[in-house]
């Protein structure tokens, strides 16, 4: 029988999973938070997300066409970037921000480096940093009070995310002599209120970027990704653990070990960052121990920025900075080879 057989190197069977499937799972995992964001902040949240996604996908296709590369929008990675970018914006941003952000994320932060797999930093985070630098007010003023109530009393203070409140109140408490007595007592009660607001922070009916407020919904999506083994526990847990410990040690109004670590875990973008940004495959380390260092490093930076930096929020910058260390981490954290005896 003269039959031509295919000849190739082993293995001859491959797993069914592919990049598109992984991206689709990530999108699925982001859906609860998107629905939550739409519920808390209204249809505009969905509109902003639609804009970023559209902007990302169109940019990807156009840039690839222009550079004569195969168009790879069917790998769904641009959609993931779009959703994550939207999740990092207030729902009330002017409509051009999502569009500009999407273009920046894909054209500059991703395709300019060679596309998926070659980008050194997470495109959504890079775009957010760019927007924050260019439109600082639009990116940090949260005008929409979340459905289901905000933190009572907090509206009294101008910008209304819990993290802002925490930061301002702590500042006041640390320099009590500079402030009027009622300001000080206001700050004290605000901090106490935040302590009672864990429920709000957990469910998500607090002010903030449109996809980051609900720890519960983020965890729901993360559970799917962990179950599907798309993300590994190392980065999120080492990150959250570091944030918690450092916030507890240094984040309190009354000296060491008085910080409200539960608050720091639940507030702001820490949860979203831990499970969906820091775990970005392309921009996180390959090696198991590298992933731990990455999480710890991001945790340290987050707390430094939050407690001592100029911004109330440090998640995205900390992850961006750690993205840059990935080649180094990969290099110096080669796993112990099976049967290798390390000299030491």
């Amino acid at each position, binding site marked *: *029988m003269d039959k*031509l057989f295919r*000849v190739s190197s*082993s293995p001859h*069977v491959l797993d069914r999973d592919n990049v598109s499937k992984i991206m689709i799972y990530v999108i699925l995992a982001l859906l609860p938070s998107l629905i939550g964001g739409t519920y808390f902040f209204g249809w505009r949240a969905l509109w902003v997300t639609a804009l970023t996604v559209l902007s990302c996908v169109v940019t990807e296709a156009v840039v690839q066409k222009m550079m004569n590369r195969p168009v790879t929008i069917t790998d769904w990675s641009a959609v993931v970037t779009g959703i994550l970018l939207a999740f990092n914006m207030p729902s009330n941003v002017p409509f051009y921000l999502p569009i500009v952000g999407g273009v920046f994320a894909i054209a500059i932060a991703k395709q300019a480096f060679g596309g998926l797999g070659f980008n050194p930093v997470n495109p959504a985070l890079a775009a957010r940093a760019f927007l924050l630098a260019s439109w600082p007010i639009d990116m940090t003023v949260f005008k929409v009070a979340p459905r289901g109530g905000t933190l009572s009393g907090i509206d009294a203070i101008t910008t209304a995310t819990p993290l802002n409140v925490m930061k301002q109140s702590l500042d006041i408490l640390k320099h009590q002599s500079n402030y009027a007595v009622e300001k000080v007592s206001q700050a004290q009660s605000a901090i106490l209120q935040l302590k009672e607001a864990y429920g709000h922070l957990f469910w998500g009916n607090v002010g903030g970027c449109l996809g980051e407020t609900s720890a519960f919904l983020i965890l729901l999506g993360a559970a799917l990704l962990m179950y599907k083994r798309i993300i*590994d526990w190392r980065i999120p847990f080492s990150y959250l653990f570091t944030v918690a410990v450092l916030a507890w040690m240094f984040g309190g109004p009354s000296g060491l070990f008085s910080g409200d670590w539960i608050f720091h875990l639940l507030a702001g973008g820490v949860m979203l960052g831990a499970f969906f940004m820091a775990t970005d495959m392309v921009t996180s380390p390959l090696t198991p121990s590298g992933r731990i260092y990455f999480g710890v490093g991001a945790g340290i930076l987050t707390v430094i920025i939050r407690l001592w930096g100029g911004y109330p929020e440090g998640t995205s910058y900390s992850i961006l900075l750690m993205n840059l260390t990935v080649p180094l981490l990969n290099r110096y954290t*080669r796993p112990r*080879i099976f049967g*290798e005896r390390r000299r030491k």
Partner: protein
Amino acid sequence: MLGFKERTFHGGAHPPEAKKYTEKKPIEKMPAPEQVVIPLQQHIGAPTEPLVKVGDRVKIGDRLSEPKGFVSVPVHASVSGKVVKIAEMPHPLGKKVLSIIIQNDGEDAFSEAVRPDENYMDLSPEEMRKRIQMAGIAGMGGATFPTHVKLSPPAEKPIDTLIINGAECEPYLTADHRTMVEFSEEIVAGIKIIQKILGVKRTIIAIEKNKPDAIKKMRGVTRNDSSIDVIALKVKYPQGAEKQLIKAITNREVPTGGLPMDVGCLVQNVGTTRAIYEALARGKPLYERVTTVTGPGIKEPKNLIVRIGTLFKDVIAYCGGYREDVSKLIMGGPMMGLAQHTDDVPVIKGTSGLLLLTEKYVRVADPMPCIGCNRCVDTCPMHLVPTTLAEFADFKRYVEAEKWGIMDCIECGTCTFVCPAKRHLLQSIRFGKYEINLQKRKAS
């Protein structure tokens, strides 16, 4: 707690087992073909010199070649008949190899050398090894390393644990499985011989849990033998790889670049163990073997006893022929087997199976850039970083590749299997290893 943990190693993957084609099918004896092509080299090591010439008449079991040196085993006639040609012929491992072609006279006459020896257990270990070598036995799991060499560890590396490998973790293949179910006593008798040669007491028969009938059978025949234990292993690829098997059973790690004997272990495949018994008790050299013919591309999948030298096409014809959409012929399993471009090659000692895959199963996908998903890293049973190794190899950065352990790769293919970007990781790594070996040989 730890005691309840399933025995296994760190890493690995779960390719579809696909054993259903043949796991329940009793081993069948395939009639000898008209002609056999017996390559003079079917093992890893030094080649052999032909002892016959064209026109000679031979009988089954007649030795056809003389091993050159210690790491070498002879080949034997698998049919009776006339030597019609001695020439370079296609070989399933790629290159052409000098082969002896015998026209079958249909008489199935046996060589005088093939006769039982009831007192084989009284032989000295030295004599046993000699007979094992002269019976042409080489590892039948696919590695084909001469067995007598494995059975001659240096005095400073005593073996305390003999592991009989019945894991058969390659998907599709069931030859070892059926051998355990149908020839369990012969395997035990083979174990007794190895125990005597090595002076080892502790023996473990390791079987993956997906073969409950084999586990039951082997437990049954070893019940009264306190020196042999049967251990059920977690089903995971590559559980049957020597180093991973030793780790799972003894928790010892074979050092990098080392051999199982460095940690006091010796691993023998079940088929080889049975062949040892047949060689000593029946005087039967390795001229036939159990092999699985399977996969979606063959009409009637079977477990067969096939004469060495039978052409693949004859085996396939005996199994009803190909299905229309067949597109890949593999010697061995889907993870480590070798794709063949022709079915005009003979069954050799290391042919554990013939796998026929159809277009649907041969997923060809264009590789994408690595997305850094870590899967290859987390599944590599040797704890390597396959994507980095492949990159080093692709860019010819061999010094770094070696530093990162490229030579420790056991070529199990798990990394390529799991890669969602469909990268040809193992192919690159293999190429890198090849180049490094080449450079080393040149240097020395």
